[in-house]
């Protein structure tokens, strides 16, 4: 798809989300956890953008800032041309009709005391999307059918469903007010291998059918490769590489991306034997006390003294391939 400003659904500009760290009786602020530090990217209508990185890198926080679960410290989130960064709470309610969330844990994210039908239909009631009871019931049943659940099961409770079915309930709930944009936060990582493919296929089908746009937050790089158009790699609150899926997987430039890719095992022993593996040393540094300069330099095998001087900016190396590394 050609880039045009009106094709952009969501723009994130220099987004920062700092969480204060307090200490002592008077909760004196002693520092910040810079969960997201200067992140910018765009999402085009109908695309899937994959956001990958290790736990604690800030990928979920980005998703929550978009949903306005958090109010960002600085920067802008522009959705359909409207700046939603400082939207008052009574307007946020209407925003949530357009932006929805699919959660990771299908066990924790469904109220055990609410029937599946009422979980899915709650948003329809809140937003007054149906005029009477018959229409409401009809809508809920349609949603059940849409995600591949038996519409007769609306009266059952979450514990009566399997993990995969629960995740389908979560997806139906997200779809209930016909959003245009869905943040999928690790949608399959809590599911069994044999179930994962069902949910991935469902997400892809729904995207085709309903013209949805996804932000896919995940740490599984093979999944992200399978369904993303654009991929952003995050490390310690920064985007370190941003490009289309093909370029990222065929020509990763940032050393961290290379290490991430080489860490994913391929289910084929003959391929595995020939692969070169990059094993990173040490752990991810604490975001409370990040290293100076490039956040990755203490673990990077290509680091030079200059790497610890300045935070590298994301720059375009080749068309549409952005990398934050001075060694590239």
């Amino acid at each position: 798809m050609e880039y045009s400003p009106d094709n952009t659904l969501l723009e994130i500009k220099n987004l920062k989300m700092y969480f204060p760290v307090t200490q002592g009786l008077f909760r004196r602020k002693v520092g910040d956890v810079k969960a997201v530090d200067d992140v910018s990217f765009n999402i085009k209508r109908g695309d899937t953008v994959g956001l990958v990185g290790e736990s604690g890198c800030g990928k979920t926080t980005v998703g929550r800032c978009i949903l306005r679960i958090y109010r960002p410290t600085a920067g802008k989130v522009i959705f359909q041309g409207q700046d939603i960064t400082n939207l008052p709470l009574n307007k946020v309610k209407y925003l949530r009709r357009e932006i929805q969330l699919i959660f990771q844990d299908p066990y924790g994210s469904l109220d055990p005391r609410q029937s599946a039908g009422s979980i899915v239909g709650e948003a329809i009631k809140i937003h007054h999307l149906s005029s009477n009871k018959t229409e409401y019931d009809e809508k809920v049943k349609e949603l059940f059918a849409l995600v591949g659940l038996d519409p007769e099961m609306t009266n059952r409770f979450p514990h009566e469903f399997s993990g995969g079915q629960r995740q389908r309930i979560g997806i139906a709930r997200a779809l209930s007010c016909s959003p245009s944009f869905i943040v999928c936060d690790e949608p399959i990582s809590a599911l069994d291998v044999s179930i994962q493919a069902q949910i991935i296929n469902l997400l892809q089908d729904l995207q085709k059918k309903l013209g949805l746009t996804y932000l896919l937050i995940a740490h599984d790089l093979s999944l992200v490769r399978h369904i993303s158009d654009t991929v952003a790699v995050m490390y310690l609150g920064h985007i370190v590489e941003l490009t289309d899926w093909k370029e990222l997987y065929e020509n990763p430039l940032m050393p961290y991306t290379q290490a991430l890719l080489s860490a994913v095992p391929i289910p084929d022993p003959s391929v595995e034997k020939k692969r070169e593996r990059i094993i990173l040393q040490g752990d991810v540094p604490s975001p409370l006390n990040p290293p100076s300069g490039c956040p990755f330099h203490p673990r990077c095998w290509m680091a030079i003294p200059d790497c610890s001087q300045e935070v590298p900016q994301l720059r375009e190396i080749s068309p549409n391939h952005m990398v934050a590394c001075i060694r590239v």
Partner: protein
Amino acid sequence: MAPLLQVKNLKVTFDTMAGVVKAVDGVSYHINEEEVVGLVGESGCGKSVSQMAVTQLIATPPGQIVGGEVIFEGQDLLKYGADSGQIRAIRGGKIAMIFQEPMTSLNPVFSIGEQIIETISLHLQLTRQDARQRAIELLEQVGIPDAKARIDNYPHQFSGGMRQRAMIAMALSCHPKLVIADEPTTALDVTTQAQILENMMDMVDVFHSSLVIVTHNLGIVARHAQRIYVMYAGRIVEAGPSENVFKNPLHPYTIALLKSVPRLDEPRGRQLVPIFGLPPNLIDMPPICAFKVRCSWAGECKNETDPELRQVGDNRFVRCHLDIKGESSGIFPR
């Protein structure tokens, strides 16, 4: 040469309100000296329970080992009680375990060092001083920086990856002959996962131990294991050298598993093939093939009996009535 560990027809049941769950239903396998074996399957297929039973870590009640033999270095471990001296000498000593959740399997009120030293002094005749020295060396070997100071840390002061490293150090502290790693990296990030596995492989190499990796991640098995067992509904459904199994899977379940996950090196655009349906209820197992309801070949299979695990070639075993060749079923991108 006799294998290091030979499990024959192992059966483990759990008493529940709904009935008796046959978690492990006649599992036989063996591990050779210095061999790395992978055990794959979905959650609830009995892979962990079959491993816990080896050192009798099954909580009784509700669990019970109801049959089989576990022959380790020539003696049947199931002849001894779970609390007997013989088992206690082997458990943690000659057979060590690494568990999935390092936070719940480490004791939060004792320092890391204390817990490693406890294991060492239980199994080796060392003074406390020497045991501590050995614990420091082990922590260094598994890549804990500044091990001399970190040994007195408590589990909460370690990151997830470091805790798992400490678990590996503990497991290998007494030169085990066999290490059973139950989902050792499932709770960890990919880069940490690669680090930990690499480290674990180095360690078993140095100590000449055998290793069983229990996991649901086919990639990990492909990367590290020499031989694999695939489990489904409390039984082994396929076994063989891993190169062979991945190249030519013979059981519909193994084929289905391989088709259901996206691969990093395949051309994009392949439709993933999910495995529909659910594993059977282990309380009330059907008298036919346990995979039949989910099997893509069920239409061709007219045999209404429960298949036996049969040998189909060099070291290859499969529990299926049909002669399916995964090689030609178009799983692979080549």
